[in-house]
C-alpha cells in the first residue's frame, strides 16, 4: 500500500470567476487558500475587472490570455462560462489541481467543524483507490476503517487515485427539472465517507468541487462538448458531465481510481430552476444517447497515457456518435485540438 503525502507546492487551486466580486468567496476560503498558489481565470464573457482581496498568491488569466493561447485553433473551442476554469488546468504546471466553483463556501461537518475541502481532496488523491472490488466499509485507508472479511488480499494495495469528486451541502448539484419540481429540496445530509467508484461504472462527475492528478488525467479534463446555448448557471451546462465520462473511461483504462464523497462544500443559492427549464434542452437529450457509448467504450492496450486515451475516445466519438449529430463531430474535433493544446502547454 503506497501513501504519499502531497506538498502544498505541488497543488494549484483553480478558480473560474463567473462573478466580478470575488471578495466574499476568497475571504471565506482564506484560511485554506492562503496556503496555496491559485490560478484565477476570468470568464472571457465577463466584462470588467475582478475584485480580489489582498494576501493571496495567484496568477490571473483573462480573455486576452485565452485568445493568445487559442490563437489559430478551431473557433469551436470555448473557455467561456464554466469552461473558463479548464484554461486554468491548461496553464497549471503543478501535479495536482483542486477546483471549486465561486458560489461555494466552506461547509461545516456534522460536529460543526470547518471542513478543509482542499486538505480532504489532497488526502483522497494521495491514498490508494480500490476500483476492482467494493469494500462495504467504504474507504479502507481512512482512520478507523479497513478492508472487510471477504475482500481479496491481492486487491488490497489499491491503485493510484486520479480524480476526487466532492459533494455539496445546501444546494446540491441537481438538474433544473429536479430542482424546479422540488424547490425546497436542500441537501442537509452529511455523509461521512469517501468511496471508490468501481471500474466500468459510469457516474456524473460534477465540476463544482473537484480535485485531480493533473499529470495522470489532465488531458481528459478539457472542454470539448458544449451545449449550443450553454448558460452560466450549472443547470444550463453539461460540459463537466461529458468530460467526466471521458475521464472515467480514461481512469478505468489506465487502472486509476475515481473517488467520490467527502469533502463537502456549502453551495449558495443562485438562479431560478424554472427559468433554466426554458433554455435549450437539446444537449441534455443528446447526453442520454452518449451513455451507452461510454459504458461500452473500450480502449486499445497501446493507449498508455491520458493523451493516447483521449485521442482514441475522440476517434470513437467521430465514428460512432458523429453520424447521428454534428455536435459530436465538433466534440471529437475539439478533443483532438485540446490534446494538441495540452501538449503544447506542457512544453512551455
Amino acid at each position: 500500500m503506497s501513501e504519499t503525502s502531497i506538498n502544498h507546492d505541488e497543488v494549484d487551486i483553480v478558480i473560474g470567476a463567473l462573478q466580478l466580486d470575488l471578495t466574499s468567496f476568497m475571504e471565506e476560503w482564506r484560511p485554506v487558500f492562503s496556503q496555496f498558489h491559485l490560478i484565477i481565470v476570468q470568464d472571457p464573457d465577463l466584462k470588467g475587472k475582478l475584485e480580489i482581496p489582498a494576501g493571496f498568491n495567484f496568477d490571473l488569466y483573462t480573455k486576452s490570455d485565452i485568445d493568445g493561447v487559442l490563437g489559430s485553433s478551431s473557433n469551436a473551442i470555448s473557455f467561456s462560462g464554466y469552461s473558463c476554469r479548464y484554461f486554468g488546468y491548461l496553464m497549471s504546471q503543478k501535479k495536482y489541481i483542486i477546483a471549486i466553483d465561486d458560489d461555494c463556501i466552506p461547509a461545516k461537518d456534522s460536529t460543526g467543524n470547518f471542513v478543509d475541502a482542499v486538505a480532504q481532496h489532497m488526502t483522497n488523491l494521495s491514498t490508494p483507490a480500490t476500483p476492482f472490488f467494493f469494500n462495504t466499509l467504504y474507504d479502507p485507508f481512512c482512520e478507523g476503517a479497513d478492508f472487510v472479511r471477504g475482500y481479496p488480499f491481492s486487491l488490497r494495495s489499491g491503485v493510484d487515485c486520479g480524480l476526487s469528486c466532492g459533494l455539496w451541502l445546501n444546494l446540491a448539484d441537481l438538474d433544473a427539472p429536479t430542482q424546479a419540481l422540488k424547490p425546497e429540496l436542500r441537501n442537509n445530509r452529511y455523509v461521512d465517507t469517501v468511496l471508490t467508484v468501481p471500474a466500468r461504472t459510469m457516474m456524473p462527475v460534477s465540476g463544482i468541487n473537484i480535485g485531480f492528478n493533473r499529470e495522470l488525467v489532465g488531458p481528459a479534463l478539457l472542454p470539448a462538448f458544449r451545449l449550443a446555448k450553454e448558460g452560466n448557471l450549472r443547470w444550463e451546462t453539461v460540459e463537466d458531465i461529458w468530460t467526466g465520462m471521458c475521464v472515467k473511461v480514461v481512469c478505468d483504462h489506465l487502472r486509476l481510481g475515481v473517488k467520490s464523497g467527502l469533502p463537502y462544500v456549502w453551495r449558495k443559492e443562485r438562479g431560478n430552476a424554472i427559468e433554466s427549464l426554458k433554455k435549450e434542452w437539446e444537449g441534455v437529450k443528446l447526453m442520454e444517447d452518449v451513455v451507452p457509448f461510454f459504458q461500452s467504450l473500450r480502449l486499445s492496450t497501446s493507449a498508455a497515457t491520458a493523451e493516447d486515451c483521449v485521442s482514441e475516445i475522440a476517434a470513437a466519438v467521430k465514428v460512432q456518435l458523429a453520424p447521428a449529430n454534428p455536435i459530436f463531430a465538433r466534440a471529437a474535433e475539439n478533443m483532438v485540438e485540446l490534446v494538441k493544446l495540452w501538449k503544447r502547454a506542457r512544453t512551455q
Partner: protein
Amino acid sequence: MAAIEASKSSTPLLKDELDIVIPTIRNLDFLEMWRPFFQPYHLIIVQDGDPSKKINVPEGFDYELYNRNDINKILGPKASCISFKDSACRCFGYMVSKKKYIFTIDDDCFVAKDPTGKEINALEQHIKNLLSPSTPFFFNTLYDPYRDGADFVRGYPFSLREGVPTAVSHGLWLNIPDYDAPTQLVKPRERNTRYVDAVMTIPKGTLFPMCGMNLGFNRELIGPAMYFGLMGDGQPIGRYDDMWAGWCTKVICDHMGLGIKTGLPYIWHSKASNPFVNLKKEYKGIYWQEELIPFFQSVTLPKDCTTVQKCYLELAKQVKAKLGKVDEYFNKLADAMVTWIEAWDELNPSTVLANGSTK
C-alpha cells in the same frame, strides 16, 4: 408530487410478508432488546449444533424452530447440503419460509443508536431499502436517490431514473466490524464508530463481500440464490458462507437486472470471535478466494437462464467445470448447489418464479 411525498411518510410493517431468520447455537437473549421492533413478526429459528439442547425463545414471539433432527427429517438425503456447526445452516430457514421477504440477523447483534442517540429500527430500514428501487447502471453521487432529502444528480441519465427492483439490502455494523482473521489479529482493538448516513446500490459488474449478520432480501426475487454453502463440520472451510452466497447472488442479480443495496441500517455487533479460531476456518478461503474472484468476475450466464433457479444451476455447472481443479471441495459444493435447488423447488413447488425481465 405532493401525493408521493405524503405516501412516503410511513414505512409499511409487512408483518405478514416477512420472516426473520435467526441461526443460533447458544441462546436468544438478544431478542429482548429487539422486542419493540421484532415482536410483530414471525421468527424462524434454525438451531445449530446439538439438537437435544433446548433453546429458550423469549415469551411473546411467534416462531417456528428447527434443529438438526428437523432438518434431516424434512429434507431427507438432501439435508446433506445444509451445513452443520456453522451459521450457514440459516439458509434452511430461507427455504422453509413461505414469506416474500427475509431478514436475517446474528444472535450477537443488538440495536444500535444513530448519531442523535435514537435507537435504530434496522428492520424498518431494510424494508425501506427493499421497497424502493435500485440504480445499478449508473452511480448516483448523492447515493440512494429515493431516500427522503436526496435525488438524482445533474447528469444522471433520465432514462435510468426508474431504477430496478431491489433484491437485497445489506446492512452494516457499528462496534465490532466484520474483519477477517488476519485483520483482527493486527487490529484487535479497532472499533467501527463511523456512522455513514447512506444507502447505495452496488453497481452492476462489481462484486462485494456480503455479510450475513444483518441482511434483508426479497425471497421471491432472489431466494434460491441465497445458498450459504458447505461450511463447518466435516468441511475444509468456514466463514465464507455468506461470501459465497453474495458472489452467486450478485452475478445472478446482474444477469436478471435486479439491484443490491448496501449501507444503512447499522446494528451493534457485540462479539468479536476468536481470531485464531477464525484464521483456522478462513485459511483455505483466503487462498481460494484469489481463484474464486476472477471466476465470478468473468462468469457469464446464457440468455435462456430466465429464472434464478436456472441461473443457479448453470453457476453450479461452471463451478464444477472451472473450480473443481482448485480443490475437490468445489466439486462437492457444486453438487450441493444442485441439491439445494432441488430441495428448494420441492419445498416451494408452485414457485416457478416470475422473476421479471432478463436484462
